[in-house]
């Protein structure tokens, strides 16, 4: 049986040579290319980047991009960054990072946020600006620094402090101060929880895995696969988008530090992290809190060629979806994949490189089961048939968010660069990037290799 299906798969990969479409270029629409993209090493939060601010890490990605592409700063029309947990002092982190990285102060910059697909939103915003002819050259990226998060005073304390600010006389001040109570000092922590349901994402992932009957073992196996592939890719030097980062006062960081291939036995020992004591999602099969930034140079094709660049890939059709934030929080890829393929006129067989964001093993495997279910397609997606499974041998071959790390605002660019670099390395033509995000949203985009 396995032999037969193995042969079938082999047969398939030969059939892949003939694509449904030769290219996704459309008449009268500008081709948009990725010239190149970089990222800082992704680090476990609380390690080497812990004393930095988000714009410091973002700046490192931007200077890395400048160095890698040698793009003249004044050519850049616009800069867009994604981020999720905002540092209040640098709420438009794109601008602060760009100024510090030495971009022209004449280049406008803005920051977008869409949970884990913030960088995807930064890229597609740039695509929109170029496609509509507003810009020719855009830098898109993303940053997240989970080592430092804004822990706030309680609302009551904030109100008291603001009132105190307004109080003019000593008497007024004293009357404001007299309202102080000790419990005002209890801090407010940001949680990785849905505002609408108050459910943490890990909890939702555990329920999702249970809904699709994904076992703990399956999840651990998938996580192990991610770590093993990431390790292999790192060792073989395939993660070429990583640029070294000399952290002030610390050693130069050259590689991701969250890749930890373990053993199934070791992983099996961990206790569930969210649904205790009987859940299946653990620290080992979830993505970890990560610090890091990414940046990417996007141009209109003719501009890139005029400047003498050899682009890496085209950014083609993309799609945003959203669904129930309670029970389908992390099913974005399932919903987005068939839609973007249909929009592009491709089939699953046309895709040579899949790059899906791995929030949790359970989430990836639940998406697999959903994509492979006619029942789900018919009852929840309004489709006649399932879209089918992405072949595992084309899926996240260089590791994923589980192993490389997941700085919320920066992952989107990593996914696109991984797809682009894999297509070049493996000789494929089409890559599919997909991700889920808090709020029950999702994104998918087709990346087409630039002809060599």
């Amino acid at each position: 049986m396995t032999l037969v299906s193995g042969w079938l798969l082999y047969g398939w990969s030969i059939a892949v040579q003939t694509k449904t479409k030769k290219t996704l270029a459309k008449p009268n629409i500008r081709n948009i290319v990725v010239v190149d993209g970089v990222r800082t090493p992704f680090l476990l939060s609380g390690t080497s980047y812990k004393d930095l601010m988000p714009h410091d890490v973002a700046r490192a990605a931007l200077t890395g991009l400048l160095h890698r592409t040698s793009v003249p700063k004044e050519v850049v029309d616009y800069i867009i960054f994604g981020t999720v947990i905002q540092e209040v002092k640098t709420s438009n982190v794109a601008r602060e990072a760009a100024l510090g990285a030495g971009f022209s102060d004449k280049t406008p910059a803005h920051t977008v946020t869409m949970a884990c697909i913030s960088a995807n939103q930064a890229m597609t915003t740039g695509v929109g600006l170029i496609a509509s002819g507003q810009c020719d050259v855009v830098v898109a990226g993303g940053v997240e620094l989970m080592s430092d998060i804004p822990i706030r005073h309680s609302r009551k304390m904030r109100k008291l402090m603001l009132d105190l600010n307004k109080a003019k006389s000593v008497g007024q001040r004293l009357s404001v101060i007299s309202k102080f109570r000790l419990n005002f000092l209890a801090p407010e922590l940001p949680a990785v929880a849905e505002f609408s349901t108050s459910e943490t994402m890990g909890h939702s992932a555990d329920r999702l895995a249970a809904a699709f009957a994904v076992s703990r073992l399956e999840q651990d196996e998938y996580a192990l696969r991610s770590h093993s592939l990431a390790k292999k890719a790192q060792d073989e030097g395939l993660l070429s988008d990583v640029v070294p980062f000399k952290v002030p006062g610390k050693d130069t960081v050259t590689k991701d530090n969250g890749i930890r291939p373990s053993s199934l036995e070791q992983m099996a020992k961990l206790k569930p992290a969210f649904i205790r004591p009987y859940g299946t999602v653990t620290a080992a099969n979830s993505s970890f809190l990560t610090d890091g930034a990414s940046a990417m140079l996007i141009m209109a094709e003719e501009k890139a060629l005029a400047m003498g660049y050899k682009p890496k890939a085209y950014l083609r059709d993309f799609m945003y979806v959203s669904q129930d934030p309670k029970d389908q929080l992390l099913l974005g890829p399932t919903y987005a994949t068939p839609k973007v393929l249909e929009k592009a006129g491709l089939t699953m067989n046309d895709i040579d490189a899949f790059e899906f964001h791995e929030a949790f093993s359970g989430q990836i495997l639940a998406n697999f089961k959903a994509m492979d279910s006619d029942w789900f397609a018919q009852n929840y997606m309004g489709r006649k048939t399932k879209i089918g499974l992405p072949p595992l041998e084309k899926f996240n071959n260089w590791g994923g968010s589980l192993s490389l790390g997941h700085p919320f605002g920066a992952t989107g660019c990593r996914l696109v660069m991984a797809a682009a670099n894999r297509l070049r390395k493996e000789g494929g033509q089409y890559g599919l990037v997909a991700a889920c995000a808090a709020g029950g949203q999702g994104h998918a985009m087709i990346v087409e290799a630039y002809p060599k």
Partner: protein
Amino acid sequence: MVACRAIGILGRFSAFRILRSRGYICRNFTESSALLTRTHINYGVKGDVAVIRINSPNSKVNTLNKELHSEFIEVMNEIWASDQIRSAVLISSKPGCFIAGADINMLAACKTPQEVTQISQEAQRTFEKLEKSTKPVVAILQSHGDTLAVSCQYRIATKDRKTVLGTPEVLLGILPGAGGTQRLPKMVGVPAAFDMMLTGRNIRADRAKKMGLVDQLVEPLGPGLKPPEERTIEYLEEVAITFAKGLADKKISPKRDKGLVEKLTAYAMTIPFVRQQVYKKVEEKVRKQTKGLYPAPLKIIDVVKTGIEQGSDAGYLSESQKFGELAMTKESKALMGLYHGQVLCKKNKFGAPQKDVKHLAILGAGLMGAGIAQVSVDKGLKTLLKDATLTGLGRGQQQVFKGLNDKVKKKALTSFERDSIFSNLTGQLDYQGFEKADMVIEAVFEDLSLKHRVLKEVEAVIPDHCVFASNTSALPISEIAAVSKRPEKVIGMHYFSPVDKMQLLEIITTEKTSKDTSASAVAVGLKQGKVIIVVKDGPGFYTTRCLAPMMSEVIRILQEGVDPKKLDSLTTSFGFPVGAATLVDEVGVDVAKHVAEDLGKAFGERFGGGNPELLTQMVSKGFLGRKSGKGFYIYQEGVKNKNLNSDMDSILASLKIPPKSEVSSDEDIQFRLVTSFVNEAVMCLQEGILATPAEGDIGAVFGLGFPPCLGGPFCFVDLYGAQKLVDRLKKYEAAYGKQFTPCQLLADHANSPNKKFYQ
């Protein structure tokens, strides 16, 4: 309209909680038809775990009847005898339901206390065996838990708002008769057990976990490879099996860690003196709240006490005996009658309406209008709330928001849910959007010409299918409908205030109201969570009409020199949740006057009695009751014990009439009030205003606060005896005249003792 607005205030009083909690009973006790084959229970074995599935055929829920009971014993015996099986999981195959309590028809069929005691003892024996099972049994609770689950070694409940645990027996005038009174105190501590059993309150899953009623919570799953409910049950089973194995392997302990407070309480309860104090305090509280009218709570205390002080054998025996005694009481029959009536009034006898009401428009953002809006938006109805002024509208919108926000504070809603529910409400001053309305409910001021104007305005903008409902407490619907172009679409929907608390909705149909219009109105009312009675049009319909002669009698009694405080205590000790004088204050003196005048005109001498001049003078002095701060009593913010309004003395003195000694004993005063009410209620049935006695009972108890322990006016006639009532009425008739002439139907019942309203 305002009349019944404030009558609804009844619902705020704590003594009334028995009544308010009744809504839940419906989900806890159910009837089921007897089934002879062994088809309720089956089990399979997974590894060394037996999975017992309970699934009564042809019924939405599983009830603990004889067949299920004996099959359960058979299955358990097989499991205990099997070498292969080391533990068991107990689950209901019906989504959202475990075993919905005892079969109350089974109890009703018993003729003697001994029969009931025997049923109780059988259940006790089974549950005790289950409790002492050497093979651990894990129960899965998805909606309602009961004593069966409490006997298991471990309980897993779904964590959602549907899952509630509790011992609602007290609400039916009985007690948890299968060992619950003995087991609960051990499980959750004596004080918490008393609270549960004496109030019958529902306990949400998360709270139950904290109390130790359940050991694990499982959140329901969303869609996967099959429907969510189906997969959730599977998942619960999987989780339960791991716990069952863990328990059998002694890897998991069924004992949980108690918090500091709990440990201290448990310690304190080991001291006999403290225990005695607890019993005493609980008993005092119960006596105060029930005024000795409800026997069940006191017996529960007694049984628990026996179990703790004299050991569980004595406890079990006492439980089964008291259970038998209670099942035979009038109070229990009355409460069970109300339960049946409530089930009846939760059905739409007109069938499904042709068009579902999705868009609702409400005219008037006053207390009633906003209240109706509140119970509509949270059921997903898109609701337009129109008022004439921005201030009025703003007040109404705030009322809706506050109602929802209070639920957030009680953690019954999240702030997010509140906001999304609130967005179903559109406040406006014009008729925009009325062209989409499926139903308009007007709750404008009680003035016929205003209602006419509004009806004409609305009919100009609404679509053809749209129902026009009038929320009025006394204006005849046919008079309102007189100016309508389409009287078949006009109906009365009489809500009680506060709308979000009072369960009753009185729907009034005229001769011209179409069946589909009625179906629509009932469907909307049911959606709003109401218990519904449907009555024919007439002055005062049913509820207001019954109340009026009683109110008239209240005035006469006050004129005869009875102190309002005394009158209040006489009425509450008869079982009314609010004293009669306080009731007038709550209703509003102006409203009472208005209703008295209207109905006085319609019914003439029969509705005479007290001199309405009393009300007129009070109104002229501005003593309008609670809303103006003064009525019979003085109302002050933050002052709990209200004082008599001394300015009333001169008014009462000026209208004083000499009391008639032969009908002025305390008991006579109580019966003058009650018989006038009951007589009028029976007359409503006689005249066809009411379709069934059950609706009359539900309307009186749920809308007007008729003593629940009497089961409503009709149940009261049956239990107390029509002849005795007629005798009383005749005695009062001799003293006062026509107001007390027994109506024909009542007289008929008195003449033939076999005639009962409930057969």
